[in-house]
């Protein structure tokens, strides 16, 4: 049962990834990419040469199959700007992005659940309203705006934290980018936790637990919170995509040498193999995380396996 469930999940994921690869393949400048890259003034001979070098002179089906076979071999193509293999750049920059993403999602999850629980503890009181309206503001601001505001206040104004650079120059460089990236998921997790807690608190077994004479705190943590966390896990894994996309902007603002910064620079230069590679990488990570979450669910909740 479990094995067939996992197999089905993995097969479907591969099918989805096939679609993802096809979409990624078409990320290229409109018209003739070689012409766009070299500009209107370039002579037709060098345009033709670049076209040949990029394989653009071949028919489209051939290009797609070539793209897929090289992908299968771990080859993401070469950057047009630096002529380095895209995969090499991504691997080289992965630790920086991973550090940022993992610390942010950890902070967002912990603080988000905490704030959500506090808000649900006494709903519709001042502390609940304050938490929920702050989190609404947090949802409404894109990462790059949050980042700029944090730079303005804590970097330039108060001079508490450095506004640019990587942790090799000190751990304090992590603070602002991490908070910037965490604010949106944190706000959403807080809201989901609150509403999920309130759902669970209305259930019969919670009333039974209270009727048994258990203290509020025991009921709250042992009975309610544990059951309220399921939707929160879904939110965290779904928000991982937004977080990964957020790294692009955050890394640019804080000059953080990760994959996102490489992608950002590539977008400015229309270096499309690099854009394809980073976007594909992000999508694969996201799909993998979600499939793992699905499989994990199958273990936790037998109902899921059967559907």
């Amino acid at each position: 049962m479990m094995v067939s469930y996992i197999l089905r999940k993995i097969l479907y994921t591969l099918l989805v990834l096939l679609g993802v690869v096809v979409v990624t393949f078409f990320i290229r400048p409109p018209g003739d990419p070689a012409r766009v890259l070299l500009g209107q003034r370039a002579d037709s001979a060098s345009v033709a040469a670049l076209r040949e070098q990029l394989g653009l002179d071949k028919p489209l089906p051939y290009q797609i199959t070539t793209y897929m076979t090289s992908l299968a071999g771990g080859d993401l193509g070469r950057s047009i700007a630096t002529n380095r293999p895209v995969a090499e750049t991504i691997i080289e920059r992965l630790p920086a992005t991973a550090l940022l993403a993992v610390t942010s999602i950890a902070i967002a999850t912990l603080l988000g659940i905490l704030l959500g629980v506090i808000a649900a503890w006494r709903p519709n009181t001042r502390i609940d309203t304050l938490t929920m309206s702050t989190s609404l503001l947090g949802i409404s601001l894109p990462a790059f705006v949050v980042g700029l505001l944090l730079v303005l206040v804590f970097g330039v104004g108060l001079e508490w934290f450095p506004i640019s650079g990587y942790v090799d120059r000190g751990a304090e460089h992590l603070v602002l980018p991490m908070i910037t990236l965490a604010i949106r998921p944190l706000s959403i997790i807080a809201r989901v936790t609150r509403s999920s807690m309130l759902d669970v608190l209305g259930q019969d077994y919670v009333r039974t637990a209270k009727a048994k004479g258990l203290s509020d705190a025991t009921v709250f943590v042992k009975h309610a919170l544990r059951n309220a966390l399921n939707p929160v896990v879904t939110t965290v894994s779904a928000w991982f995509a937004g977080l990964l996309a957020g790294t692009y902007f955050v890394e640019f603002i804080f000059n953080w040498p990760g994959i996102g910064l490489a992608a950002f620079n590539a977008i400015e230069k229309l270096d499309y193999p690099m854009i394809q590679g980073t976007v594909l990488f992000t999508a694969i990570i996201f799909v993998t995380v979600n499939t793992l979450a699905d499989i994990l669910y199958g273990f936790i909740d037998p109902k899921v396996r059967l559907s």
Partner: protein
Amino acid sequence: MSTDRVESPSRLALRRLRKNTGAVIAMVVLTVMVIAAIAAPWITPFDPTTQILEYSVKPAGFRGTILFKKNPADPETPSIIAVSDWQLRSDTVYYRDPAGEPYSIARSALVGVTGDDFVATPTFWLGTDRFGRDMFTRLIYGMRVSLSVGLISESIALLIGIILGAIAGYYRGWADDVIMWLVNVVWSFPTILLVVAFSVLLGKGYWQTFVAIGISSWVDIARIVRGQFFSIREQEYIEATRALGYGPTRTIFRHMLLNATGPIIVLSTAGFATAIIAEASLSFIGLGVQPPTASWGQMIKDGYGYIALGTNWGMTLFPSIAMAIGVLVLNVFGDGLRDAFDPKTSQR
């Protein structure tokens, strides 16, 4: 026949919405924004692309004197000369530019007859950007871009999402499998990255931005329509339409879709906000709406360079605040709508 009015669900929802103070305030702010965006040419003191280079990067509240010079190419928008002071002697205007250099110009070359006509000392309420363009004017024009992106992109998303979601939910079977596969493929990309990808593919520009955002954001709508259709499909009144011999188009659009309106409206409001953020993010990257058209994302990016210097932070702050208000208001309104359509949640 009874004269009692039967309240329709949407009428009930509207009444609940009116009781929600936050949502009402949000709706008022939203209305003001829409009116300001439409009336932009009449309520802004400048043209959004007019540059007064002598008055570049001025702080909020700056007042500067300007002369209006006739513009033969476009009589509607006169050329602007920045001056520190001026004098009219016989038919010549003698003035000094902000650097103190003396100049003169024939009165006939200026707009109108007297000083009242050709001189003004406007206040740049939010200061100017690095090309000496009025920030307030550009902010209002940027709002135009943001709101139209929200409206048009969301319409595209709705069209695709409703059609695909309806087909999947009504026919099920292999049609559902194929559409859900597509949904999962699109869902595998973070929305903003997909928007970036489509922008690279479609090129930079106004319409390309609308389309790129629209075709990236239909997934949630398709999913919700499909889910609604799954449950509606089993109800008696849909069975009745089948018994009456109605075709699928009529059943889908006249009977099923109407009953899924609530969730669709709620999602569209959220989608509207997301589209505004997506456009700003695109302009921030340098894709999307291109200069000199004013866009919030671009204004934020323009001011970004000054932040590290610790000066002129208004250039970044004002468009950021404008965007925050816009998106916040849409989210509050969307929350209000959700509570209105689904009273269970509002009782909490």
